[in-house]
């Protein structure tokens, strides 16, 4: 199973590189789909069905929105030469993140094992042991999300709420109080002093 996970993670890396490299927007979106679905299968193999369900549904929604916006536009390909300084900076950033990642991974539990295998008094140990008794929820992920870590979920819901409120408010051209013809009224007001 470990080999299968490694193969899928290779798919993730290759898909991400293709998504950056290709100049066709639709190919880039499809490559991102490969990344997302390979990660979904990895989550299933690592026995995290909650994460896998969320990953697959968000991936489907995102892919279709991106495909729609990529296909509908007149621009289908990315034009222009690649800038050398930008590529050098990206390569340097990737190198730095790779080094930091290797350092961080040394501190983590072995791949595929829970973090509480490494730390003896980890809170997750208490969640697994007492979760059903304390919250009554058989799904321990839901028990953590909505009971032990309810503040985080409230914050996450607030983030989504704020984003949507901002988007809808920005896209509303007319205000509720004023009559709809705001622009023409402003133009009339600008030309009015000449008449008076």
């Amino acid at each position: 199973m470990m080999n299968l996970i490694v193969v899928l993670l290779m798919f993730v890396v290759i898909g991400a590189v293709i998504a950056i490299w290709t100049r066709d927007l639709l190919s880039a979106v499809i490559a991102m789909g490969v990344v997302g679905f390979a990660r979904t299968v990895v989550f299933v193999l690592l026995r995290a069905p909650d994460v896998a369900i969320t990953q697959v549904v968000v991936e489907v929604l995102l892919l279709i929105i991106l495909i729609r916006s990529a296909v509908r536009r007149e621009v289908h390909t990315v034009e222009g030469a690649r800038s050398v300084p930008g590529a050098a900076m990206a390569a340097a950033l990737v190198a730095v993140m790779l080094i930091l990642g290797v350092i961080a991974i040394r501190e983590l539990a072995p791949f595929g094992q829970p973090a509480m295998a490494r730390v003896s008094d980890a809170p997750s140990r208490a969640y697994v042991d007492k979760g059903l008794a304390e919250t009554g929820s058989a799904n321990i992920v839901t028990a953590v999300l909505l009971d032990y870590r309810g503040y985080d979920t409230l914050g996450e819901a607030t983030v989504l709420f704020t984003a949507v409120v901002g988007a809808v408010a920005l896209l509303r051209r007319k205000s509720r109080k004023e009559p709809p013809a705001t622009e023409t009224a402003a133009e009339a007001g600008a030309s009015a002093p000449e008449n008076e």
Partner: protein
Amino acid sequence: MKHLATEEREGMSTIVGTVTHWVCGFIILYGAYIVLYGHLSPGGGFAGGVILACGFMLLMLAYGKRRLVAALPLSTASVLDCVGALGFWLLAVLGLLIGGGVFFKNFIPHGVRFRLCSAGIIPLANIAIAVKVCASLVLVLVALSVLRVKARGSDEDFVTDIDEV
């Protein structure tokens, strides 16, 4: 004028429409199942809410945005968005008021384990989050896929205001 042509040909072919007609209800049903059994089996409010939004998105892709707006008017979606967010917050505050001064206190008795009606406020919180996520994503979807930026001086009749949808 090209825009008008695509507008009249809203939605996809008859095959897609028929399959959507059969499948859409099951998608909504599956989303509701994921939400309501979120405390018993994998899933939960967020995942279920996204599945519900996928059902509405399928309606829009297959029949066009008018069908989506007929099924879930955008004003209703706005209201549901607020109701879901406030409902979740209200559950937390009720824990503060009823449950003895603890924010997010699970103040409803847990009930029998592994039953649908158990685990106190957790199923209610799942429902609130699902309503909120579904309405939010439908609004985002409409904002991203229907609205267009009108070029200065162009007389093409694009939808540029979310109230016009």
